[in-house]
């Protein structure tokens, strides 16, 4: 503590900044020493990789923790804290405010990069030292670039001295919410996790060994990043659903698209890696996907805050930083694509496969996923291109994305199960015929009946959506049936990779059902209601009990209370609010939701009308939860696959390596 102009200051921010500078220094060393070691085949220099990665993770973590501390003690001498916090802000939100704006979220991003590096150093006992050195070296280069960016253009520890603001500007009210405590870190873990896969790909290219061992090392890391991405995207969708007050769960907004694109490519990569590991095929393709996945993550994290794309979500955009970001992107993506162009193998892979084989289906899966990602990229960038040609700024509507995305998803859902069921190299149609006919009959019957069970009228979209989901689930069950020789209870004794795969595939079907039902059977009405009024919609009676006023810690709100009845039975007491946050004067709609497995009841407040009445927005959304339930299934599936014991078989990996003459760790 020291005294300056009568104010008491802590030196904590300086320590945070110092830790960040040290992390930068370590990152620079980390991007040089391991490569020098590789060049000279010097095991000692290469063995610096692990301690360097650990030191980097340590300094970054210290830096992040210090920033969190500055928030908790309300150190408004730190500009970033003063802009994004407030003494009245509840403590959990003070902590989440660390990543509530650009500077802090960037620090979180690089810290996670450091932690992934540490994880690689830790879990790499089976990895040859030369490979580890290259991987850690590549991570060091990425890290050095982004820490420099943080220090130069977005230092979260910059102070406002000597006149320290007595009160902070408060956190963006949209972000004062549980979803926003967990959503960004999870998504970032996914984005940043793909850096590991990327580093493996670049290391393999540099070493000229794109082999089965490389694919096997990459797979669990890819799956880990993919699981984080899946959960992160689902959390974001859930947050938008209850916090934005529109009742929508996906808006095809540039920020959402930016998270979906790497997810699609990472999904393709997961499957392509399987082919490369098992069959030694698709090598160049897999490497390219690894580069794409990370590049799209970078695009996702940084494009939205460079001022290049505008978005309703972009709470942290600043054109000043755009050029630096572009230079970094150019180095990372351009550099890696150059290495790819120079080093990727041009000889065709040796393995052969028939058109009816697992390889073919996985290739089709890859193409569909890539086309979907490309369509989204095009839709996201189209306004930019139009703008560039001087034709104005526009929003590309959800209609366009849906037109592109829905048919691709249908095709994908149709082939997922078949791909899983079929054999490597060559399969016979006669072998698959019976299972597929069974699944098709089930799909046609259940899918065909579903709209009539739902509301009694013909609806092709519902038939299609439910039909393809039943198809996928049926094929997955048949697959288990065959693997367990007719005893489904023995599912637990099958390999974890298989369990994970089946679970993830069923998750896709669950999400498809959710999306189909919500899209087709959601009911919503905007009605004028005064206290005492009732309104009946899709079998539920909404009774407006009373309107009142609530004072929160840093906001005050108009609130209303609704009883919801199903027949005579009261099923929920809902209390939507319209909050005005004092510090910024901004108004937020807090929807009230009664969630259920088969339907959500959603009430939010619109505009106040005369005589104490309100414009109310009432919604009933069937199967809403299934959209996210599917994502949970997929994540658990990924987790199981990652934990499969064959990724921990150290011996096999290193014996491959000794054959190729490299130094094992």
């Amino acid at each position: 503590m020291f005294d300056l102009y009568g104010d008491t200051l802590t030196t904590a921010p300086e320590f945070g900044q110092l830790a960040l500078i040290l992390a930068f220094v370590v990152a620079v060393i980390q991007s040089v020493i391991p490569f020098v070691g590789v060049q000279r085949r010097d095991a000692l220099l290469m063995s610096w990789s692990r301690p360097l990665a650990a030191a980097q993770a340590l300094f970054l973590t210290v830096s992040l923790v210090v920033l969190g501390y500055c928030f908790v003690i309300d150190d408004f001498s730190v500009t970033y804290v003063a802009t994004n916090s407030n003494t009245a802000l509840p403590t959990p939100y003070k902590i989440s405010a660390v990543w509530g704006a650009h500077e802090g979220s960037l620090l979180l991003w690089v810290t996670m990069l450091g932690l992934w590096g540490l994880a690689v150093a830790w879990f790499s006992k089976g990895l040859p030292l030369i490979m580890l050195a290259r991987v850690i070296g590549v991570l060091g280069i990425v890290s050095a670039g982004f820490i420099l960016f943080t220090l130069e253009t977005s230092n979260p520890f910059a102070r406002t001295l000597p006149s320290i603001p007595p009160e902070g500007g408060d956190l963006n009210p949209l972000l004062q919410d549980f979803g926003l405590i967990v959503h960004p870190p999870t998504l970032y873990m996914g984005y940043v996790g793909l850096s590991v896969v990327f580093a493996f790909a670049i290391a393999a290219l540099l070493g000229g060994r794109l082999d089965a061992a490389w694919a096997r090392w990459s797979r669990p890391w890819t799956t880990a990043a993919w699981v984080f991405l899946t959960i992160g995207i689902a959390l974001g969708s859930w947050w938008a659903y209850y916090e934005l007050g529109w009742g929508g769960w996906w808006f095809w907004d540039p920020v959402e698209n930016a998270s979906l694109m790497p997810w699609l490519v990472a999904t393709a990569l997961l499957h392509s890696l399987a082919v490369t590991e098992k069959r030694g095929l698709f090598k160049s393709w897999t490497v390219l996907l690894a580069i794409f996945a990370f590049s799209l993550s970078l695009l996702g994290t940084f494009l939205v805050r460079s001022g290049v794309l505008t978005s309703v979500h972009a709470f942290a955009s600043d054109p000043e930083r755009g050029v630096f970001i572009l230079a970094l992107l150019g180095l990372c993506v351009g550099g890696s694509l150059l290495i790819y162009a120079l080093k990727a193998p041009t000889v065709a892979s040796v393995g052969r496969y028939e058109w009816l084989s697992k390889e073919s289906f996985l290739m089709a899966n890859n193409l569909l996923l890539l086309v979907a990602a490309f369509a989204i990229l095009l839709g996201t960038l189209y306004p930019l291109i139009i703008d560039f040609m001087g034709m104005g700024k526009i929003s590309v509507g959800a209609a366009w994305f849906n037109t592109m995305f829905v048919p691709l998803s249908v095709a994908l859902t149709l082939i997922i199960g078949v791909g899983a069921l079929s054999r490597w190299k060559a399969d016979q149609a006669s072998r698959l015929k019976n299972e597929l006919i069974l699944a098709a009959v089930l799909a046609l019957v259940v899918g065909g009946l579903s709209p009539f069970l739902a509301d009694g009228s013909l609806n092709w979209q519902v038939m299609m959506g439910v039909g393809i989901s039943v198809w996928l689930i049926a094929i997955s069950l048949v697959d288990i049936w065959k693997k367990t020789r007719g005893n489904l209870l023995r599912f637990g004794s099958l390999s974890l990779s298989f369990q994970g795969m089946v679970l993830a595939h069923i998750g896709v079907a669950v999400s498809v059902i959710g999306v189909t039902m919500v899209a087709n059977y959601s009911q919503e009405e905007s009605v004028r209601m005064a206290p005492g009024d009732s309104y009946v919609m899709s079998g539920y009676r909404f009774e407006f009990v009373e309107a009142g006023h609530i004072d929160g810690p840093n906001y005050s709100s108009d609130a209303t209370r609704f009883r919801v009845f199903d027949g005579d039975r009261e099923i929920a007491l809902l209390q939507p609010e319209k909050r005005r946050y004092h510090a910024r004067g901004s108004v937020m709609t807090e929807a009230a939701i009664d969630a259920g497995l088969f339907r959500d009841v959603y009430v939010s407040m619109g505009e106040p009308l005369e005589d104490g009445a309100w414009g109310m927005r009432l919604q009933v959304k069937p199967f809403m939860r299934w959209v996210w339930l599917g994502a949970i299934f997929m994540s658990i599936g990924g987790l199981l696959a990652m934990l499969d014991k064959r990724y921990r078989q150290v011996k096999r990996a290193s014996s491959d390596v000794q054959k190729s003459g490299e130094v094992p760790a």
Partner: protein
Amino acid sequence: MKRVFLFIPLVAFAVLGLLFFLTIDRENKDVLPSPLVGQPFPPFEMSKLLTEEAVSTSALQGKPLLVNVWATWCPTCKAEHAFLNMLAEDGIRIVGINYKDERDKAHQWLTAYGNPYEFNVFDPEGKLGLDLGVYGAPETFLVDSSGVIRAKHVGDLNAAVWQKLEATYQGMK
């Protein structure tokens, strides 16, 4: 496979990077010169969004106004809506063109978020939008009392943009 093909991703990325580089910081480009500025508002015979009555070009005349092109599918329109409400409260006359949209959705939108518009021209097929040279939503035109377009703004209307446009608006008769 020839090595040359492996350069395709790099070249594609370079083009994309160049596009990004050239589009950074183009915020001043929002107020676009439009061939329509100085021209009379294109004639139309359409129906109103809420009342479904017939409406034509003559309805715009009398007092200077903003003509705002919007749609419920457009997130940027949602972002600017609160600002339009404020302008309307300040007594500024705003007429909407509900562009390539559905009547029910538009109706609900106005009930939920407030209605800053004197009336809305319902343009489900974007015919009027085509005459106006609309590329997407939102767009806003400043039209004077004799029905001549004086300025056009592409993108959301906010306090900063309004600062630039207000002089033109005040100068209109």
